[in-house]
Structures are given as C-alpha cells and as structure tokens.
C-alpha cells in the first residue's frame, strides 16, 4: 500500500493519453538535455560511422556516405529515465537495418560508442526490425550538438539514455557488456513500460 502524501493533488495533464505515458513518467513539451560531460564537436569531415567487433569485416561510412543512404522520417514518443516523456517527436534518420544489411555477425548484443567516450549496450534484436535509427535531424533541422548532433542513435522503445548522443559506431559483441550508465546503477535493458530504471528493477 503506497504512502498517501497528505494534501498532494498533482497536476495531471488531460491531454496525455495514458497508453502512451509509461509508469512514473510525466509529459513535457520541453526537450531537456542530459549528459555526463562536455558536448563534443566533431567536424563532419572528421566524422565517420563504423560497425565492428564480431563481424565478418569492419564497415565504415564517411558523413557524405552516411547521408547518401536512404533515410526515414520517424514520429515517436520518447521517455527519459529522469521521468520526462515527450510525445510525437519527429526525427530523420538512417534505419540501423540499412547499416547492418549484408553484415555477417555472431554477436547478439552491441555497444554503441560515441564521441566523448560514452557507451551504451543493447541486444541486437532491439536495433533491428525497424526499431532503431541513426538520427541526424530533429523537427526538420540538423540535430543540434547538445541533443547529440551530428548524429545520435534513436531507440525510442527504451529509456532515452540508450539513444546514445554523438554516436560514432556500433561494436557487435557476443555478450551483453554494460555501458556507461549501465555500469553506474542504471538498468541493463531499460524498458520504460516495465519501469526498468535502475539495477534490479
């Protein structure tokens, strides 16, 4: 039985459909920024995206090659472990499926690695089958550095720390190797609908 906080009423939003707001989240119209260190600024001519690790051969795209790939516009709800949920965010990105096309791997997991040293881990199955993108635009504009530009991973069905900012590649692994926040108290998988915020949730 939860403790009733005397006199607490809350400020409920009538416009927030309950089936789109995971437990413990509130809807915001802002787009808060969270990151553990300074925002990196990698010039596009020095940017590349690689897929390596447990693969038949390492694949690499320059920015121009990456941007020449077919992209999609995606409208999704996103949920941050710090409790905010933002509905109907509009992104443009390259499906991870497209990048993985034709790549042979024995890995069932991956680590997304980023400028600034950030990493996050995901099962391969969570970034394939139309579930993840490398996003380079938000709301019709190039993705701003503080939101992860030039490109970030977008995995909207998991808490947003999994959608790694400033992503530079994916390293396929045979085991699930905890990334940055996952080593610092946060859940290894991070399903917002199961409220998997922290270790043991």
């Amino acid at each position: 039985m939860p403790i009733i906080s005397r006199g607490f009423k809350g400020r409920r939003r009538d416009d927030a459909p309950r089936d789109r707001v995971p437990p413990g989240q509130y809807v915001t119209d802002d787009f808060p920024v969270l990151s553990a260190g300074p925002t990196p600024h990698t010039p596009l001519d020095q940017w590349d995206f690689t897929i390596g690790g447990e693969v038949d051969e390492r694949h690499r795209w320059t920015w121009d090659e990456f941007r020449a790939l077919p992209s999609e516009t995606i409208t999704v709800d996103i949920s941050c472990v710090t409790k905010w949920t933002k509905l109907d965010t509009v992104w443009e990105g390259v499906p991870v499926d497209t990048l993985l096309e034709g790549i042979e791997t024995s890995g069932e997991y991956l680590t997304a690695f980023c400028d600034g040293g950030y990493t996050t881990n995901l099962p391969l199955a969570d970034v394939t089958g139309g579930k993840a993108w490398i996003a380079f635009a938000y709301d019709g504009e190039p993705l701003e550095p503080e939101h992860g530009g030039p490109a970030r991973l977008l995995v909207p069905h998991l808490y947003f720390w999994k959608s790694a900012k400033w992503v530079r590649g994916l390293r396929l692994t045979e085991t699930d190797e905890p990334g940055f926040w996952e080593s610092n108290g946060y859940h290894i998988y991070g399903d917002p609908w199961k409220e998997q915020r922290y270790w043991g949730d």
Partner: protein
Amino acid sequence: MEGTAVLGRLNWHVAEVADIWPETDRVKTLALDVQDWTGHRAGQHVDVRLTADDGYQAQRSYSIASPAGGPRVELTVERIDDGEVSPYLTQDAHAGDRFELRGPVGGYFVWDPDPGGPVLLVGGGSGIVPLMAMVRQRATNHDAVPTRLLYSARSWADVIYRDELERYRKRGDGLEIVFTLTRDRPPDWTGYSRRVDRGLLSEVAPADLALTFVCGPTPFVEAVAEALVALGHEPSRIKTERFGPTGG
C-alpha cells in the same frame, strides 16, 4: 569510475519530514528520516514519489544535499512554479508528512577524495545542491584535496547555504569559494558580477585541475563545460549534471 554500491533492487523507502527550513525565497531544505536507509555518496540523487489519496502518483529526482553518514537525508528543493512535485515539497509539506523515496542513484557524479590534484566545483543556481553535499563531505572527512567552489547565482539573496558557505570560506582548510552574482549585487560587492565565461574560468580554474564537477541549468552547464575544454582541460575529467527546466 567504479559503479555505485547498489547491488539489489532500489526499493522504495518511507521518508518522514523531520524538519524543513527555507534557504531562499524559492528554495527549502527538507530533512528526512528514511526507514532502512543504507547510505549514499556525496553527489548522488534520489527519486521522490508522491501519492494522492486517489492513487495518482508523481515522481521526480532530487539531489541529496547532506553528506554521507548523517542521521538524516536532506533534500534541497527549488520551487518550480508550474511544477508538480516541487510546489508540494516547498509549500505544502510539513514536519511529520510522509512520502516515498528510493536511491541513492548515480555512481558517476560523486565526490572523489583523491582525484590526484585540485578539484573545481561549478554550480549555477540550485545546481549547487549536489556540490554542497561534496563540500560537506570534504569537511566531514577532513579531505585535504584543494577544492575551489565557483557558485553563480542571480543575487546574494538567491545564494543557497549562504551562511554555511561563509563559514567554510573562513576555515582555511583548502576550500576556496568564489561567488559570481549575475543580476543584482550588494552595494559593497567585490566578487564577480557576470555570467561564468571563459575569461572568468581562466582566472578561477587551477591550471593543474584534476577533476571538475559542473551542475546547473543546461545553458549554464554547456557554457561552463565548453569554456573549460577551450581552456585546455581534459573533457573526460569534466563531469556534468544538468537540471532541466521541466515541471519539477
């Protein structure tokens, strides 16, 4: 950085407000008695969950202001006018009221007593809270690490923990405190009076800085972290924590 010592599930604890006092017009500290609290590290935060009598719940995260090992967990909360949880905590809650809390959370933005050189703490507004936990931890432990706190507030009246910081400033134990007031200054003000920028940081940040903690609103954190990088400080030694402007 090692992970935090959270091994099992972070269970919800019952927190009872033991005491509550104003820090500024908009900010209060709540001292909580938390059942079965197993301790924390300076810089960590907790999740607070409020439940209305019809079962509706709201959760928010708040930094812990108190050092580890104290009898109570202190949260310092700034009232966000259109917020949901902070108005309750700062205006409605009284001693004896109860709510739920779980944590501590976060194994990264935590005090390191031996970072191998001087430490800089840079706080903007209520971003001082986790840094104050570090200042208090340092004093409690008698840590010798040379530490400089740069605290940016709108005015002297907006400085949280003002009297306590003044006391620390006079102790002469290797903690230096530098204020900058961005909007209003007392008539005899001799400190800085502008936003934290590269020039100000070049004067305040030690050249041999081992570790920096920056906490505040996003534009503040972005500006400080970028300026420190531009001054040649190693990005991986700059730890940031941001207080979003959303409905706290």
